[in-house]
């Protein structure tokens, strides 16, 4: 039963997410509380400044101690450690990450969730565009490679795959900026749009103009790997008996390739596309910082530079949620495309 499988997989994802959040709050509890106590001290001091000046020193002292105890109660700092960890984990699970120390959202708000939720669509936009183009180019090149496996083009492009294998995308980004922004001045150096942003259609054209260079970088570094994987998938299928049968029946090569081989290759290719999207979240996200593309990856740079611990932690939780969400989605799509799972067979 497909829907049973779906529910099971989603529940599984939620449980894993909860476990991870719990582990994170245990790991980072001390740091979080350090930030919190520093903030409480600051707030108490600020309140003291605005106090009535006629109070005696003892009264002031008592007041400070009272206020501090109040705040500690508010943030449950007086409870035992394990209770605080659970409280913090539940907060993170309900997307209640508290307030940022320095970073502000574009509307000037300090709520961490508001700041992060602004960034999510931008990250998704950038990476899905790049991966979409990657897959199209990869399909085109991969099929060519598979058709003439072992040929000159297959060999040279495979070497290309290996050349970019360990190349940092952010380094390529730096080189691209040096060349396309400062030497040949055709692209803007970074950001989401020009300042002030244009209105109407011009806004989208401006957005595309700003997106072009990061997407180009991701494509230049990414499509080799995609083509290589697609080649391997298709090549594996081309060795199957039914392909030989189709060829024996005299179907033209195009039809064999697109009609027979591609149909079987679709599920693994979709998996590959989603996996590379996930790999971007898991390993490539810092890349945004080079282009000052204001997504989740850039937020990591800013949070580290400004030492804004709540934003850093919130960002980690959200990235994890997105990542696990992607993994679940991957399994659901795979289950949908692979009939063996749909009918409840063993994976």
């Amino acid at each position: 039963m497909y829907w049973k499988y779906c529910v099971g997989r989603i529940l599984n994802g939620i449980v894993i997410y909860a476990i991870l959040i719990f582990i994170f709050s245990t790991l980072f509890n001390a740091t979080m509380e350090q930030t919190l106590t520093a903030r409480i001290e600051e707030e108490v001091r600020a309140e003291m400044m605005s106090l009535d000046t006629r109070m005696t020193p003892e009264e002031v002292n008592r007041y400070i101690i009272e206020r501090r105890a109040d705040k500690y109660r508010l943030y449950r700092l007086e409870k035992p450690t394990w209770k605080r960890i659970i409280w913090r984990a539940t907060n993170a699970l309900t997307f209640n990450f508290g307030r940022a120390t320095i970073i502000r959202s574009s509307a000037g708000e300090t709520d961490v969730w508001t700041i992060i939720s602004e960034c999510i669509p931008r990250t998704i936009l950038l990476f899905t565009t790049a991966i979409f183009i990657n897959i199209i180019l990869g399909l085109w090149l991969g099929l060519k490679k598979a058709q003439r496996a072992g040929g000159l083009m297959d060999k040279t492009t495979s070497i290309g795959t290996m050349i970019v294998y360990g190349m940092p995308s952010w380094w390529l980004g730096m080189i691209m900026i040096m060349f396309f922004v400062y030497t040949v001045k055709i692209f803007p150096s970074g950001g989401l749009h020009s300042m002030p942003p244009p209105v109407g259609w011009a806004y989208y054209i401006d957005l595309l103009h700003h997106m072009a260079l990061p997407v180009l970088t991701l494509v230049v570094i990414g499509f080799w790997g995609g083509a290589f994987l697609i080649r391997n998938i298709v090549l594996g299928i081309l060795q199957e008996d039914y392909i030989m049968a189709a060829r024996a029946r005299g179907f033209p090569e195009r039809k064999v390739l697109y009609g027979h081989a591609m149909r079987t290759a679709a599920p693994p290719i979709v998996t590959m596309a989603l996996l590379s999207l996930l790999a971007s979240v898991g390993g490539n996200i810092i890349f945004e910082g080079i282009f000052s593309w204001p997504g989740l990856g850039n937020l990591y740079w800013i949070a580290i530079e400004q030492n804004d611990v709540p934003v850093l932690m919130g960002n980690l939780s959200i990235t994890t949620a997105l990542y696990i969400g992607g993994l679940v989605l991957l399994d659901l799509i795979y289950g949908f495309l692979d009939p063996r799972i749909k009918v409840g067979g063993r994976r």
Partner: protein
Amino acid sequence: MKWIDIKTGLQEFWKELKEVKFGIAGLILLFIFILIVFINPYIVPFPEGSSRWRDIGYWVDNPRSVPPIWVNWFSSLKYAPSLAVHDYSISEEQIGGMKVKEVVFSYNYSYDIPPTDIIFHCHYQGSPVIVFSMERPDNEVIELIKKPLPLSEGEKIRVAIGRASKIEAYNFGSKFDREDDRISRDMVVPTKIFFSEAKVGIFRNPIPLKGVYKVTAMIILPGEDDRVEDAHISFLGSVSGLLGTDNSRRDIWSGIAAGVKWALIIGSLTALISVSVGVIYGVTSAYLGGWQDALMQRIFEIFISVPLLPLLIVMSAVFKPNIWALILMMCIFFWVGPVKTVRSIGLQIKEETFIEASRAFGASGSRIIFKHMVPLLIPYAFAMMALYIPGAILYEATISLLGLGDATIVTWGQILHDAMTGGAVLQGMWWWVVPPGLSIALVGMTFAFIGFAMDKILHPKLRTR
């Protein structure tokens, strides 16, 4: 598995690897990298560069932010390289009871872009006063700074004549240039004025004046025992070293060469530990089966659901690990990679008759796992390791790029972090940005060559149709 088995296995492997050309290329590259690690002190101009990378004093005699020497081969304008002049002519006289020594260094200037600075070095005793001046090929004499040295007992001193003579350079230039062509006094680059023709335009469009320059240091020794020894003068070039210098005067080639060692250590250690753990974990899970397998798979699922880089970044930002702790942190999350494949291979091996036979002999579980199952997976494990090394190097570089790396060592990521914060991209200092990234890519390529070659041998099906 006996030694003879390993030997024949390796021989067969080598025979097959010889057929894969890029595998050989990968091995050669790897050999070169390892060679660089061992002969490092002999091929870099600053052998202590690795340990004293952040010691400003060590790099003080390098020019700041200049391109590599070999740009002269491609550029129509010739840049002056760094040069130390140890030969001098000396004359001595007595003026009013004080000893006055005149030391003259000559420098043949035949370039278009002048050196960035002139540095005078000596050991001295007492408190002498040094007056510098420069005689140019056009017989103009520029009075440079006067430097009274603080009292010392045979200490070493270095005087930056060029940088310190801004006012003198400005005054010299203003004698020739039109009033409205002058630039602000702070913007003056003294060496540009010194090595240019004395005519209109010396400030804004200087024309190089080639020929022999004489730098004179007139040393006035007031005391009886005052001495100056070991004097030499160095011209800091407008090009330097194999790969230029950064904005802290560090020689980039020395840094790149030092980074090879760390890249190899980080990559191979992480890959070795994590792939070994992953293979053993996968095989054990497959062999045990039942609820133990199910439990191990649940744990595996949790680890695989972690977005690795973000967590590593946050952990590095919070715990500030040194390089060994960072390697350990990477191992904690890297080991999941091979588990899935290994487990499925393990499930197949488990059904083989020889496993059944050894179980019938009463072999223990650990014996079967380590003696019979794991050895079969060793070739696969090596291919996995080779393909994991670039990933580990890349993660370390990314952590370092954010400025969270171990500050006691030099890695390519840290050089790139300095380049980012030093505005190298903005100023077009390609010699600072390209080499470290290219090195990361090259090491990655080396191991990709080796890994893909092994993979090709292990999966002959994909070789051709």
